[in-house]
């Protein structure tokens, strides 16, 4: 919870978090190294200097540090976890549902644990989704279209083999699908970041909700065109909000486009933890303002109500979280000896 100087209590839901193992011991090949190193570049590039971690800490931080960074120091009342396997690069997977479940076990009332699907896995993947769902009871799943899987370098949501997976989600009552575009896809000559295939599935599955991670970055223009037409498409703000301190001018223009394109009701804050941590983004976002001319351009006022929606209420509504319950939970207590945050600074 964030409390304004006027005493207003703001629900905070971090809509995009991970618990990964990017240590050398887990690298299957050199792609394992380069993948986590690319994330590290994002951490260094966007995180304010006084908040940066060591590279070793960044590769593996564990559930307790995550709980501290999110729920003790990071203002979050709840966090949504988005797993991805990446078993082609990591021996035990990078950020699997199993790995993420450690944080869920530590803070069960505050963590929303999503599943992951890879529609290229056919009948075995469908069976796995059922098994995982039996165990964890998902509201949502994440898919990463850029993931390598055997000889495949990625896929599109309009591919025929995706449909049975979305039908299975519907059957299981999983109605939220997080879509993350990556740099590879099939075919490789196609723009892998293009989000227009989301339009295809959003129209075919109007009862499912599609959250496009990073608001389609680096294709925000295409994302706005799709989300503007499809009421069941949401924008996950992870990475966009990370620009707020390092590149405030770009953050502002992107936010104006997003407010104009889809409005404040379908934008969901996310820190992309542990690429960076939510505390400094939330502080900067609460202090952030649009002037009169910018408000006209955005077509929406970025007032306290809009900030409440973006920082927590939209995600709570999407996931059916009980706002009063979350805001009245007992604070998270962690062993004081594990002052991992202090050690980082």
């Amino acid at each position, binding site marked *: 919870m964030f409390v304004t100087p006027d005493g207003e209590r703001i629900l905070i839901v971090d809509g995009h978090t991970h618990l990964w193992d990017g240590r050398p011991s887990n690298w299957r090949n050199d*792609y394992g190294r*380069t*993948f986590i*190193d*690319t994330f*590290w*570049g*994002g*951490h*260094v*590039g*966007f995180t304010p200097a006084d908040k940066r971690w060591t590279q070793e800490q960044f590769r593996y931080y564990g559930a307790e540090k995550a709980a501290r960074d999110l729920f003790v120091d990071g203002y979050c009342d709840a966090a949504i976890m988005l797993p991805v396997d990446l078993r082609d690069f990591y021996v035990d997977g990078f950020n699997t549902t199993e790995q993420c479940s450690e944080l869920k076990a530590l803070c069960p009332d505050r963590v929303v644990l999503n599943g992951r699907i890879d529609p290229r896995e056919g009948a075995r993947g469908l069976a796995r989704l059922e098994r995982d769902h039996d165990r964890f009871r998902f509201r949502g799943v994440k898919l990463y279209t850029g993931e390598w899987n055997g*000889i495949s*370098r990625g896929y599109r949501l309009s591919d025929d083999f995706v449909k049975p997976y979305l039908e299975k989600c519907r059957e299981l009552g999983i109605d939220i699908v997080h879509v993350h575009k*990556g*740099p*590879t896809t*099939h*075919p*490789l*000559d*196609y*723009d*892998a*970041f293009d989000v227009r295939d989301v339009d295809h599935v959003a129209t075919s599955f109007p009862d499912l909700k599609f959250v496009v991670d990073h608001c389609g*970055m*680096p*294709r*925000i*223009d295409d994302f*706005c*065109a799709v989300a503007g037409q499809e009421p069941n498409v949401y924008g996950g703000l992870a990475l966009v909000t990370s*620009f707020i301190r*390092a*590149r405030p001018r*770009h953050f502002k*223009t*992107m936010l*104006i*486009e997003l407010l*104009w*394109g889809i409005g404040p009701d379908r934008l969901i804050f996310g820190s992309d933890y542990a690429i960076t941590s939510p505390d400094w983004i939330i502080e900067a976002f609460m202090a952030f303002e649009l002037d009169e001319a910018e408000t006209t351009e955005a077509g929406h006022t970025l007032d306290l109500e809009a900030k409440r929606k973006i920082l927590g209420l939209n995600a709570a509504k999407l996931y059916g979280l009980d706002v009063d319950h979350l805001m009245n939970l007992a604070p998270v207590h962690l062993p004081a000896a594990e002052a991992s945050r202090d050690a980082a600074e």
Partner: protein
Amino acid sequence: MQPSEDASSSVAAGVADGLSARIAEVRRALSAIRDPELDETVTAMGFIKAIEIAGGAVGVTFQLPTQWCAANFAFLMAVDIKAAVMALPWVTSADVVLRDHFAARRINEAVERDLSFVEAFPQKAEGELDGLRHTFMEKAFLARQHAVLDALPKTQAPSPALWTIADLEDLSRLSNDLAEPVARYLALRRNLPGEAAFVTARGAPVEPAHWQVHARELRGTAVTMAANAEHCRVLAAANQA
């Protein structure tokens, strides 16, 4: 980073002047090559890491902000770099090396052997990159048009929707702030038909009644491309840190 300076440090003393001039010539040729996804030059983005010259043989090493930048755009840049260097009259061979990239080996080998993209990635690609290049040329066109409109005084009568290319050229001669964005825009505008100054990416005139919507679309594309380029700069800087 100072790629030319790095490269010239290996130059033997006596012929340094001639080689420096040739390195500068290569660098000038490379400064016309754009990252198609960003519509920024590879030199301005700092992608060129080394230029080496031995007689007519030129080596160019380039690197993108991350190991995971899209392979198709990387391939286009590698091909364009090779063509630009080979176009210099004294060049007999051009060795283009993309380094620290997940598809570097395949791309470097393909460019060395002048293979097409489909030949380079036989099971992974279905077509060549003309479509991708065209899509991003259209985005660049829209973003450059936005840059012109952004440099104009805010209220214009008559509406810019009614201007001709000649009107825009006349205006740009009167303003230093306009000259560069107008030149950049017209370089792409001239590939499309008609006399209207501001047209859609397909070359269709914009009805005055539709002008606001059009201007809004331009803005979305321009904001997106600028943010992408900035993202790349942030990651590139972090990589070197």
